[in-house]
């Protein structure tokens, strides 16, 4: 019984971390159709901002939940103004430009922080479930993922801002005709996407050793999750994170961690063969 609980927690944790690392990309790609290959580097910067803030004396939760998203969001804003806004609607060009950006950010982080592993320790202690010890931080990550999804849904569905944003994504000309500037909406959306990437990097920072090239480890998983999710932003994110997290953890427990990663990739390939438009291209159509 305890074991079942532990496995469920690990599974939820795997799903939650997929949600976290993909959320920023889902917004930027799903809403703006910008393929941001520098997504991993935005996460890496979120991690470094957190570690720097903590070593400078900031509270670790303030650093993770406020400082890192704001700083990375602002970096995203600069990037949008200088690079991305000139490339809206040019899919391949944005890929090339953001790939260049990712190399630039890796170089920049190497210059500032050095090509050395750094890290901070986890702020929440472990606790006991029956005969098992569980990492308490897992629950924090699960909680953040739930809150994040809830907030995204509430903002997009419930507020006027969300409505304007969704409208501008679908028919920018009509939004402009109604008096809203699509350019400013895109700018705000890119800020939010970058901030979410920074948040994800910040929250995962205490679990790993961070190096400037850490971003590369996340980008593939984030893209697979977003592409497999399909057109619906939140439903798609939940569906694909849930599926991949579940499959990879089943194989991790039953066979080995390596097989867990393999199973995730195989599942993604099979899924995209059967549902080329992603999960929400066929099921849950029209949901947000």
């Amino acid at each position: 019984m305890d074991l079942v609980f532990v496995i469920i927690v690990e599974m939820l944790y795997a799903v939650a971390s997929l949600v976290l690392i993909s959320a920023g990309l889902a917004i930027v790609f799903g809403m703006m159709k910008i393929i941001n290959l520098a997504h991993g580097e935005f996460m890496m910067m979120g991690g470094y901002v957190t570690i720097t803030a903590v070593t400078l004396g900031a509270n670790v939760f303030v650093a993770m939940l406020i400082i890192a998203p704001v700083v990375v969001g602002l970096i995203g804003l600069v990037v949008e103004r200088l690079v991305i806004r000139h490339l809206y609607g040019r899919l391949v060009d944005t890929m090339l430009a953001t790939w260049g950006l990712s190399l630039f950010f890796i170089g920049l982080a190497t210059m500032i922080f050095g090509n050395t592993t750094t890290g901070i320790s986890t702020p929440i202690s472990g606790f006991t479930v029956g005969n098992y010890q569980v990492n308490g931080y897992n629950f924090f990550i699960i909680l953040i993922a739930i809150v994040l999804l809830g907030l995204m849904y509430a903002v997009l569905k419930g507020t006027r801002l969300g409505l304007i944003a969704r409208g501008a994504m679908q028919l920018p000309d009509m939004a402009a005709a109604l008096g809203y500037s699509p350019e400013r909406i895109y700018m705000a959306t890119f800020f939010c996407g970058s901030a979410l990437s920074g948040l994800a990097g910040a929250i995962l920072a205490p679990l790993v050793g961070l190096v400037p090239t850490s971003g590369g480890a996340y980008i593939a998983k984030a893209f697979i999750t977003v592409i497999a999710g399909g057109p619906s932003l939140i439903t798609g994110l939940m569906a694909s994170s849930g599926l991949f997290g579940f499959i990879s953890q089943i194989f991790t427990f039953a066979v080995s961690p390596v097989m867990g990663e393999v199973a995730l990739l195989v599942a993604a390939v099979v899924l995209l063969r059967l549902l080329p438009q992603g999960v929400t291209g066929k099921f849950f159509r029209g949901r947000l």
Partner: protein
Amino acid sequence: MSINRRHFLASAAAATGAIMLPRAVMAADTIKLGSVLDVSGIFDAYGKPMDMAMRLAVSQINAAGGLLGKQVEVVGYDTQSDMALYSQYAQQLVREDKVDVVHGGILSASREAIRQTLHKNKTLYFYNVLYEGGVCDRNIFINGVTPAQQAEALVPYAMGKSGKKVYIVAADYNYGQITARWLQKFVADNGGETVGVDFFPLDVSDFGSTIAKIQTAGADLVIAPLVGGAHLSFFRQWAAAGMKDRIALASTTMGVGNEHKVLTAEEGNGIMVAYNYSQELDTPENAAFKEAWVAAGGDAGGMHELAVSNYHGVLTWAEGVRIAGTLERDAVVEALETGVSITGPGGKVTVDPKTHHAVLDVHLMEVENQGMRVVETLPQRQPIDTQAVCDLGANPDDNTQYEIQI
């Protein structure tokens, strides 16, 4: 004077020869020591201090008048934690730089990437890192501890402090795979049982499910031959899950790159290890070494097992060259095979002529407040694992890495 074509060619050739001449003399004036190490990237915690130690040893040799009346010049390349760069730079050291000796390689994968190149080109090679044992090659000298020197001592000690059920989590490449087999053997030899073995690629940094599996298996002790920056997450997540007080933890690699100083005291305390070197060793050689390290601009707490091994390696090679009186490879190898011995910061290190491995002191230690407290010292241990399979005196042409069969 009219210049015809023939005259011009003759004088040009003479002039070229005259320009070439001093360069050739200059080249012979220094001894070239080639070095290939990961000074950046995810293995830089190992490589940077190793590079520093190598340069320190060379500058000390030069300050004392050099070798054979010549100064030693370092030709160093940074392999950036990329295994593909090792073979490239090894070719460069051999073909372009024509070095007299190569020191370097950190991961066993990198050693195997360059060993055959150096063997084929008859360039003497020193691999100064603790490893899985079994390399039998007359062109290579190895002074790191092998499983028989380290794990054979560590396993019974750690089992004695915890229990008989052991779980192994290892890095997924030749070092981790072979070391895991040695660990299984020593666990069985000591009447224990290996309840699980898991391997992790070097970029894996999420160990949550493994920590749950270890508990399911009911292990008393976890032994972790994990390698590199990403694997450091295991120790962090282990502590974060509150496992430290429940299941004992030992490692064959934790601390060789000063990982115990990156972890906090709470995360690291109590992890059991066995190495040739600890900064806390109280010997005059270690005190002198630490002083020279700081004087050379090194970080006061920056030296570690692998750096000291690399330092020992350069000193051993220098001693071999002094005895041989030449840089010619076969003469230096023969000189080293007389059982050359040096005393460095890690104690006395002697070349074992039969295997080209080292006889050295091993200390059982526990991590305590970001230091390594010596629990017990096992003086002058022989590399009996490699000695059992390798005899370079009888088979000088041997060129294999023997693996343990179980």
